[in-house]
């Protein structure tokens, strides 16, 4: 198989990565032994807006997880996401539009 210029040996790379993972594991274990400070009781309780929040109930909002990326692709989310509105007629309209697009594209490519 020709992979073009460069070298890629999957087995060598795997071994290197496994060694790297082992090293990282060792480092992690080592660092854990040094910094094994237990948080005091005062640190554990979290306050939000004057109320005490149970940390187990706090989860990240998965939809807003990548809000910077959302900001980068703002035009996309502004125009495409409302298209996925759950309305069947919109979806069918897309099918018809897609059919026309396909026909035009085929005509452009093959004629």
């Amino acid at each position, binding site marked *: 198989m020709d992979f073009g210029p460069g070298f890629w040996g999957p087995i060598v790379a795997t071994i290197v990565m496994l060694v790297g993972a082992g090293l990282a594991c060792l480092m992690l274990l080592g660092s854990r032994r040094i910094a094994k400070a237990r948080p005091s009781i005062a640190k554990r309780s979290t306050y939000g807006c004057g109320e005490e929040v149970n940390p187990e109930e706090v989860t*990240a909002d*998965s*939809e807003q997880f*990548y809000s910077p990326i959302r900001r980068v692709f703002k035009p996309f*989310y502004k125009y495409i996401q409302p298209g*996925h509105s*759950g309305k069947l007629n919109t979806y069918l309209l897309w099918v018809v539009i897609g059919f026309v697009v396909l026909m035009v594209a*085929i005509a452009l490519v093959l004629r």
Partner: protein
Amino acid sequence: MIEAAPILAIIIPLMGSFLTPLISILTKRYKKERIRDLFVVAITIVTLLLVLYMLPTVWNGNIIVYRLGNWTPPWGICLAIDGLNILVALIVSGIAALVSIYSLMYMKNDTGLGKYYTLLLLILASMMGVTLTGDFFNMFVFFEIMSTAAYALVAFRRNWDSIEASIKYMVMGSLGASLFLLGISFIYNLVGSLNIADIAQKISIIGTNPMPLVLILILALLMTGLSIKIAMVPFHAWMPDAYQAAPSAVVALFAAGTTTVGVYMMLRVVYTLFGVAALGAMLIVLGSVTMVVGALMALVQRDLKRLLAYSGISQVGYILLGVGFGTALGIEGGLFHLLNNAIYKALLFMCAGAILYRVGTTNLDELGGLSKNMPITACLFTIGALAISGVPPFNGFASKWTIYIAGIQAGKAFFTLLAIIVSVLTLAYLLKAVNAIFLGQRPKRFENVKEAPMTMLFPMMLLAVLCIVLGVLPSLGIDIVTPAYNALVNQHGYIHAVLGGI
């Protein structure tokens, strides 16, 4: 009898699906329902063995032509099996066997399992039918059986969401199938034949350079019907709904099976039926759009299965991109990605099913910290996630790397760059999923969650091992797809083998 393996690979699951309701009634009467389940597993494994039996013959470069009722091909229906069919048949039957084993535990708590297993075998039989047949209308009929069984399986649990998803899927799918049928009727009007090889021969006589308008219309109709099945943007809207609402075992079969079959049909139409490799330019653009839209929509999902569905849309874009490059390396990379996509997509959906089975929800906001409870599932899910985002040493990297190299060699650097960026986005949203499910704080109510049962873990482990093996030894995967590539570009060989020099 064994030389009839092509038809037996279709007939045995079909007969199994007819026998399952009878066996179901009998076993229900005697309270031995496990017998029915094991019967279904046996049928799927027999189908896989039949495909494996045909494998060496086809890989040696032969094309098996099986004539139904001893009629010669242009008039009778025949089954024609070349390297491309056998690859897809291998994927479909293998995944179906694993899914049936997985369903033993996963579907245990549902009622009406006789119907479930009937539909499972029916969808397997119809997928094998679509894959192995050499007749175009026959392909349409099996395609419709596959779609109808899929609609029924999506609505199987009859919750509000599965009903809604099934209705949307069904209306869109029926519209696509109608357009496909219209395309077939135009073909019949034009060339007066329904055998794929015969149509291909007659279309090559008509000539595709420049293409007549009616052929463009036909190609657009057929491609629309198939694009709905493989959920190419902008035909993808049914897929997240259906995948979110259907049982996970079924979704694993859909993602790995029906999508693969849809891609196979598209390749068959473009390369064998019309012989227009130049259409690759269109596939590249549409594949890129599919890739980008799928990945960007997946970034903002809250539900794990919905996220995976969008990711599946995105991966189909990669396959189309690889095939569209048109070079030998590109097509091989696309086909390799087809194989890999089936493996890790089934793995990821099975993991999602394991989580749903033990926890009862796939909402990412509610989950968290499950790696302590389900370490094996967490490990397998992470393997799948890394494989799908193209991290070495997993199989996704091998195929994606092949596609990148092919793209640069073909002089399409822009699309290659796009593919790499989408790969990064894939890693981003899957790491989000891993983070939300397995890491972080564990809510108190999940403290007693147990690891998934062994019957469910076994197929997942097998798929994960395949992920690693194909990643560490990518030349093995390339060896598997090379016969498919040879078959794909060898239109004349297919016509000659089926028609026998007529």
